[in-house]
């Protein structure tokens, strides 16, 4: 500690702050942290990527190879590494797929930047070079779009399933042939006439333990993991009335006491309440509704009359489920317990209680023309496995959304990356400034994709890369890594393709994140405030 009065920053800030500056202390350390993060997720890239077991701070176990889940759940602390995590999250939000590509590419770019820094380049030159290289790469990527992929009939199940295979196979290799058609079916069920308005929220996933993955199925409509309340368990072609609140005798919100003045009033009190309730339920039954859905509890007395009039009673406590249920049936949720108007009633083709894997579920089936919710019922032996499949399905649904907006596809299996690398390297050689080096390094970084795919598949990475370059030099721009043999192969012919938009955003976001990290030259961390630890999630103090 300096003697006497502290000077400089120390004098300005409270005791306990942390402060790093300069290339050695700040930039290098940041790079190192980001590299460490990328190293972790790298092994999960590609179809043969390994899973990670992450136990988050709530002791929940995740077994997954989905990069966005991994980085979110492992709670990254380092501020620079967090920038990468944010880039990955942005990717997840934008396209919902290829998050690992962002992390891996960014890690590799930073690793290469470190070499350049040691060579004496200035961070701004590297950043500049990377920017230009990425612009070039993206324009190359556009030229790589496979001919004929820009138009896709998003209602054609077979064609869609083929496109989705790529996204699924990178998460659940071996199940893509099973899952892709299921996802395609579910998505096509709910896609509106203008595919641009496809809403991911309309495809639901319900996980039920037991059975095996091949037992999974698509239900046109909804599946709720609970039983119907009453003894009526199945109705067909029924009108549906939905109450947002509970179905019970209504009481005032304000605390009140009923004042009884005479014996007659006392005797008539509960009788009148009963009659009132019966009147309501009768009005509902008279309106033609056969199903009552309630957002809250259904009172015992109400249940009695519901039984009496032979209605099916269903309780949906989740507001989200309730909203979807309304959407699926076209019902209007009524807030007050009153007789429904004809236009407030919804319609259900069939509602029945089915036993799935030891649990009773309410299944709402709709015709394709009605409603707009589809549910994928996933079956599997363990919770962890189901969670992971769910994430793969999520990616698949997001890929469908991306396809609806931009159906263009590029060659997969590292083919686009190698081609980008090749052309960017050529482009770099034509540059006169110092950014030439940075552009060359950018090209090199792109190699990480085929390299990692090869490494994760237990192949000789360098050999595979050399053969790929040779193939691309001969004009086979679609040649990617074959994970079986390691030989260059046109994977598009097998129907394995990557969505153009996902790749475009991944390169873009990775470059942006890297440039941001590089441009930081000082880190100042204020002293942590005392007192109880801030809650996780909102108190990450950087």
């Amino acid at each position, binding site marked *: *500690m300096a003697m006497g009065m502290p000077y400089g920053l120390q004098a300005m800030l409270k*005791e306990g*702050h*942390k*402060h790093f500056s300069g290339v050695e*202390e700040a930039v290098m*350390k940041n790079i190192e*942290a980001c590299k460490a*993060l990328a190293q*972790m997720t790298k*092994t999960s890239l590609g179809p*043969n990527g*390994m*899973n*990670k*077991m*992450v*136990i*988050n*701070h709530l002791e929940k*176990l995740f077994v997954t190879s989905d990069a966005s889940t*991994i980085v979110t*759940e*492992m*709670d990254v*602390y*380092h501020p620079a590494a967090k920038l990468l995590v944010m880039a990955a999250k942005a990717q997840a939000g934008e396209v919902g797929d290829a998050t690992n590509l962002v992390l891996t590419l960014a890690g590799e770019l930073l690793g290469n930047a470190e070499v350049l820094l040691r060579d004496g380049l200035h961070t701004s030159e590297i950043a500049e070079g990377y920017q230009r290289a990425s612009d070039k790469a993206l324009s190359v990527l556009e030229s790589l779009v496979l001919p004929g992929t820009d138009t896709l009939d998003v209602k054609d199940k077979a064609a869609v399933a083929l496109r989705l295979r790529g996204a699924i196979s990178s998460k659940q*290799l*071996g199940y893509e042939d099973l899952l892709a058609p299921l996802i395609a079916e579910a998505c096509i069920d709910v896609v509106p006439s203008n595919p641009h308005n496809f809403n991911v929220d309309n495809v639901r996933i319900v996980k039920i*333990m*037991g*059975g*095996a*993955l091949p037992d999974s199925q698509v239900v046109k409509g909804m599946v709720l993991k609970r039983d119907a309340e009453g*003894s009526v368990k199945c109705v067909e072609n029924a009108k549906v009335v939905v109450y947002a609140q509970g179905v019970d005798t209504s009481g005032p919100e304000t605390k009140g*006491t009923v004042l*009884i*003045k*005479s*014996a*007659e009033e*006392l*005797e008539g*009190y509960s009788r009148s309440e009963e009659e009132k309730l019966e009147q309501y339920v009768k009005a509902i039954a008279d309106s033609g509704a056969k199903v009552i859905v309630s957002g809250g509890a259904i009172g*015992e*007395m109400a249940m*009695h009359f519901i039984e009496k009039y032979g209605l099916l009673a269903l309780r949906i406590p989740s507001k989200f489920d309730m909203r979807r249920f309304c959407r699926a049936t076209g019902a209007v949720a009524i807030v007050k317990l009153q007789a429904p108007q004809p236009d407030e009633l919804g319609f259900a083709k069939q509602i029945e209680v089915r*036993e799935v*894997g*030891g649990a009773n579920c309410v299944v709402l089936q709709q015709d394709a023309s009605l409603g707009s919710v589809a549910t994928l019922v996933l079956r*599997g*032996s*363990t919770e*962890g*496995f189901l969670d992971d499949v769910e994430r793969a399905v999520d990616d698949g649904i997001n890929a469908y959304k991306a396809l609806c907006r931009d159906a263009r596809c590029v060659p997969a299996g590292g083919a686009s990356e190698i081609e980008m690398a090749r052309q960017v390297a050529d482009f770099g050689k034509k540059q006169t400034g110092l950014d030439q080096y940075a552009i060359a390094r950018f090209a090199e970084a792109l190699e990480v994709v085929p390299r990692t795919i090869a490494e*994760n*598949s*237990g192949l000789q990475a360098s050999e595979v890369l050399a053969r790929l370059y040779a193939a691309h030099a001969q004009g086979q721009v679609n040649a990617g890594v074959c994970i079986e043999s390691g030989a260059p192969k046109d994977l598009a012919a097998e129907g394995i393709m990557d969505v153009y938009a996902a790749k475009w955003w991944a390169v873009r976001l990775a470059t942006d994140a890297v440039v941001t990290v590089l441009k930081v030259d000082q880190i100042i961390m204020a002293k942590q405030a005392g007192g109880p*630890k801030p*809650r996780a999630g909102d108190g990450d103090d950087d």
Partner: protein
Amino acid sequence: MMPMMGMQPQIILLKEGTDTSQGTPQLVSNINACMALADTVRTTLGPRGMDKLIHDDKGRVTISNDGATIMKLLDVVHPAAKTLVDVSLSQDAEVGDGTTTVVILSGEFLREAKPFVEEGVHPRSIIKSYRQACNLAVSKVKELSVSLEGKGDDEKRELLLKCAATSLNSKLVSGEREFFAKMCVDAVSCLDASTLDLKMIGMKKVIGGGLRDSFLVDGVAFKKTFSYAGFEQQPKSFNNPKILLLNIELELKSEKENAEIRLDDPAQYQSIVDAEWNIIYDKLAKCADSGAQIVLSRLAIGDLGTQYFADRGIFCAGRVPEDDLQRMAKATGARMQTTVNNLDKAVLGTCERFEERQVGGERYNLFTGCTKARTATIVLRGGSEQFIDEAERSLHDAIMIVRRALKHAHVVAGGGAIDMELSRALRDHARSIPGKAQLFINAYAKALEAIPRQLCDNAGFDATDVLNKLRQKHALADGSGKYYGVDVNSGGVVNTFDAFVWEPALVKLNAIQSATEAACLILSVDETVKNPRSEAPDASPMGGRGGGMRGRGRGRGMMRR
């Protein structure tokens, strides 16, 4: 406590206290954990399997050989080993039996994979072959299974008996398996064929007597509820009674909590008291007028009600457990009433006979010969509480098996015969594959042999000897030996299909698929990241602060280094 300038700051990527471990050693340690777990249950497999006594933290003692029960009680914390617990629970939910089998199979698949992993084979290659082998095994089971569709009812019944007996054979009650198998099949055949709702089979346990004293009621039975004075005068047996089910209190009490009575004139006081009595008398009268001879309520029936009903020759019981009451509704066709207004004949149910009977040290209300019976109750008797508990679990498994067999009428030969045949088929297939997949499929085939091997080990036979005999039988070119399995009685091999050791194909299918999925899941993990547990939101403020202090203290230590 300022950080020293110029000192190398530590790079902290993850939060302090985070554990990470990765690579092959991590995978191997996961495999070891799973194998250890599988080893704890393996001795419970089969008819000669041993039971486990589990003493939990609350001091409860459970004796069981049901895989799912043991796994649940073990309270496993290892993240990878938890997967195995999940598998056995999912098998329990889906099929109800074969829970030990599925754990042993997963453990064995991992055991066989371990040497390959240690040698540096990429786990993905193993996973791929395992999945391939699983698909082959599944199609082979489907091919080998014998369909029971289109058989006559008697024949089908015979067959269900066989399946139930096979399941019970491996349980504590194996000595009485024929007796219980019949009971299970009878109980399930009572149910509504379309849903086969398990909740409609009630299971009551009464300590005392022998297992043989257990009996099945083709209706509902429940323990006599708490009764008030006057109960003794009520008739205790009826033929074809009318039954009324209620969900209201028949007691003198205030009508509503939020009602208040204010009187201007003291003379009115008596009229209010009278009104309250009127209300209860009115209710009771309505019950009696409905023509019901038996009144059951989920809520209390007070002493006034009890006496009132006794005077009119009506039997009543209050505070009947809800599930019993629901089964009553199913069995008798009565509808549960929440009000006594507008009672009509349609809401009353009936049964052939009602009586109160002494069972062991307790009195039971029995409703038998129900007309619309879609329900049954099993009353279990036995020497000790643990024993009856285990018998209940065994019967549950057997009932599930019968249910499955009814829904999915395919059976395979038990006693390890099907496993041996699958193993042989996979080995044959493996020989046709070039490349390393051959090794992995062979390993999978070897893992399947664990079932007959364990059956022998548990029965005290020389497993190697028996297994070789089995291999010879299954290798016969004409396929005549495909039904041979372990004979636990003689220590030799026997055609288990002819010996009627059958299991539903579904049990085997689900076990193989689940076990493979679990094994693949564990193999596919190469890194574990464990975050420090954050304070539970409901922890006391003191505890929370303490945790925070500890966290900070440790953090400083790290930074000073």
